[in-house]
């Protein structure tokens, strides 16, 4: 069943849906990647335990409890939360992803089931099992959790670089897309890093260990941080496979994007240097405050990295398939004629406070085309963004939206709808007076808007220059 034209739009007050999924996503990715890395780390420690290291065995037994409480509860539920939040932000996007990759998602679910069962078996019986069985369970856990990452990585990277899939529609062209491998390698390295840093912190906090034992544990865990050395190379590999316009945002085209990239790179570099030089090479024992700070730095790097990954897709949520406002590129031309909200069945809340029908239409257009990324007066608020524009400037900037800012999608409505949006924005900027004149009867602005719309075309901003 295809998506309907209209979904009801959730309102988040001064926040925007992107902030909700961003917050949930960063926390979930952090915990989920930690869980993936923890599987490999525990296997590493179990091998040491097999060689007679009783301390490694004691630590991994305790660390698994931490893993269960953090990953199996919080991680699993934030995973469900990601599905539900994704619906709140863009139901058509998650719908398209599910339609295209449902068998891979179902396959990922199989690995998730194996991860949970092997993990709980280990958790429940670990102290009563011989070494070989512990290794077997941890191997199942580590492999299945990494395969979950493998599958999810293909689906997420497809959104940014669908590659050959755009021509062939092949499941595997979509899955093994241009950013699949760099993204997978990078996420694996991040997973190991997070697991190692969390383990160092847990070792510091656990009262069962002496200072000498903590130092020994830190030395045992530190080699797990060594792969951080290749992170910059993998990062460059990832940037090199990005589409040119996306790379442009990162390298100065969008200041916010560049700043977040700088935070991610800066935090990772600091972390990598400290981890490799101080923890691994010089074997300096650190205290719990430092361990906590390192993990916080890793959280900042993860958060900034995820922000960048989400941001560089603009103006799409699925490149060349779906714009951020859930309009498909082929729909833009149709909506320029038929309208964006002509068959929207959902009423405008608070319509009784709007002075005329044109403003009601304007608010409806805002809800359909803008509200996913913009609030009215809060985050990324349209009032602040457009306050200094004249009315004609507003008309032209909206009509040629993809030229105004090339990370914006083209306007997908009729001149009448655009004029209604302009009047609604003016009314908001004027502090919502009780009376507001309508321009519905004036053909001149509509004709001018039509000209501007035709000039800009229906393609994304990046394509304008090529035309």
């Amino acid at each position, binding site marked *: 069943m295809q998506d309907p034209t209209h979904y009801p739009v959730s309102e988040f007050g001064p926040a925007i849906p992107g902030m909700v999924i961003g917050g949930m996503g960063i926390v979930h990715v952090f915990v989920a990647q930690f869980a993936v890395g923890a599987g490999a780390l525990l296997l590493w420690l179990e091998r040491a335990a097999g060689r007679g290291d009783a301390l490694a065995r004691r630590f991994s037994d305790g660390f698994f409890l931490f893993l269960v409480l953090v990953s199996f509860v919080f991680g699993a*539920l934030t*995973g469900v939360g990601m*599905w539900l939040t994704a619906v709140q932000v863009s139901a058509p996007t998650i719908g398209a992803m599910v*339609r295209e990759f449902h068998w891979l998602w179902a*396959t990922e679910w199989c690995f998730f089931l*194996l991860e949970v069962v092997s993990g709980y078996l280990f958790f429940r019986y670990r102290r009563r099992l011989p070494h070989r069985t512990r290794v077997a369970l941890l191997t199942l856990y580590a492999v299945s959790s990494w395969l979950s990452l493998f599958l999810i990585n293909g689906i997420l990277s497809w959104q940014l670089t669908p590659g050959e899939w755009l021509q062939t529609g092949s499941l*595997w062209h979509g899955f093994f897309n241009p950013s699949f491998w760099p993204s997978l390698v990078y996420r694996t390295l991040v997973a190991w890093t997070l697991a190692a840093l969390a383990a160092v912190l847990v070792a510091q906090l656990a009262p069962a260990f002496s200072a000498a034992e903590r130092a020994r544990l830190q030395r045992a865990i530190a080699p797990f941080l060594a792969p951080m050395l290749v992170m910059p190379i993998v990062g460059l590999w990832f940037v090199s496979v990005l589409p040119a316009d996306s790379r442009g945002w990162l390298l100065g085209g969008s200041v916010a994007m560049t700043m977040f990239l700088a935070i991610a790179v800066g935090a990772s570099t600091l972390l990598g240097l400290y981890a490799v030089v101080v923890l691994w090479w010089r074997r300096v024992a650190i205290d719990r405050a430092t361990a906590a700070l390192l993990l916080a730095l890793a959280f900042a790097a993860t958060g900034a990295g995820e922000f960048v990954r989400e941001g560089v897709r603009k103006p799409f949520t699925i490149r060349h398939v779906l714009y951020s406002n859930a309009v498909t590129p082929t729909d833009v031309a149709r909506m320029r004629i038929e309208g964006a909200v002509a068959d929207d069945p959902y009423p405008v809340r608070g319509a009784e406070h709007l002075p005329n029908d044109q403003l009601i239409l304007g608010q409806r257009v805002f809800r359909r085309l803008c509200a996913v990324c913009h609030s009215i007066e809060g985050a990324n608020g349209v009032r602040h963004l457009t306050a200094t524009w004249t009315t004609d400037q507003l008309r032209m900037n909206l009509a040629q939206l993809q030229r105004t800012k090339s990370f914006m999608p083209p306007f997908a409505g009729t001149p009448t709808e655009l004029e209604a949006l302009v009047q609604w924005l003016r009314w908001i900027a004027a502090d919502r007076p009780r009376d507001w004149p309508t321009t519905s009867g004036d053909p001149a602005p509509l004709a001018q808007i039509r000209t501007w719309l035709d000039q800009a075309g229906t393609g994304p901003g990046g394509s304008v220059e090529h035309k």
Partner: protein
Amino acid sequence: MNLHAWLYQATLVPHALCAGYVTVGSLWLAGLGLRRAPEGAAADPIAELLRDWLPFVLGLAITFGVGPLLFVQLLDGPAFYTANLLLSHRFMALLPALMIGFYLLYVQKSGWRWTKTRVARVALPASAFACFAFTAWSWSRNHLLAQRPSTWPAAYADPSALPQAADLLPRLMLFFGLGLQATALLLLVQAGRIVAADARLRARLAGAAGLGLAVLLAGGWFLLPDEVRHRPPLVALGVAQVALLAGWLMVSVADRDGVLGWAVGWALGWVVGLIATATIASIGALAWMRRAGNQQTEGTAGSGAILFGAVLITVAIAIAWAVRRVVRDLGQPTD
């Protein structure tokens, strides 16, 4: 038959049984906590079992729940998404509730001294129950709203048009009825040896299952006028319940050594029967499942489906192998 519809039910039934066990089990545990045990008396074996197993079964419930969450999006994504959006924060509130409930289960299992006080033995599972009951309420409300597209615009304008308690009661009765039956059956399997030697315990479990049946039938009766109109699903449901009663009868007359074997075999049969019954019932009764049944959803076949099938079999073998190995090695000396 549509493969997605079958997979939806095949994952929904285990999810519902595990979720029912956790919800009813928490309430059961709170009820047991109310009883004043004599000084030095042995711990109630049912309470011990529940306290020990509830977190793991909740983990399974969430894991199995991801399956129907995926397949419902294929079968009726637009209605599911619309209901999500209309309920918005009212629906999303189930996430923190579930998280709190999950951690409460671990707290009551922790063995910390304060958790053994009488107040804690009631308050902890009762609070967890409230969290899980709220989750059941939220999902039922979401599902019901998804089935009523004509109410969506009104519900967007005014939340009082959303499904209310009276609408949800029959569905919640079905859930709790099934949950009671699942809890009684699973406890019978888990405590087979104890139950075999204790006629009172066996009677108590049978009583819980009987109560579950009564609640389920009452809920079904309330649902009857609206959705379950077709005779074949009703007959199928009736046969499943008769089989359930027959199973309890067999357990009650089995000799001590036979109880566990009967319980395990019958529990497996009941779950498989429920999946089949639920599939038939929902395809026959629900418009969206009929639609899905008639529709060849993209990607029903192909390399993705083959990969899924192969991995599913591999994972099932791996799980069976792991469980067998753990059972075998539990008696071995650790190194």
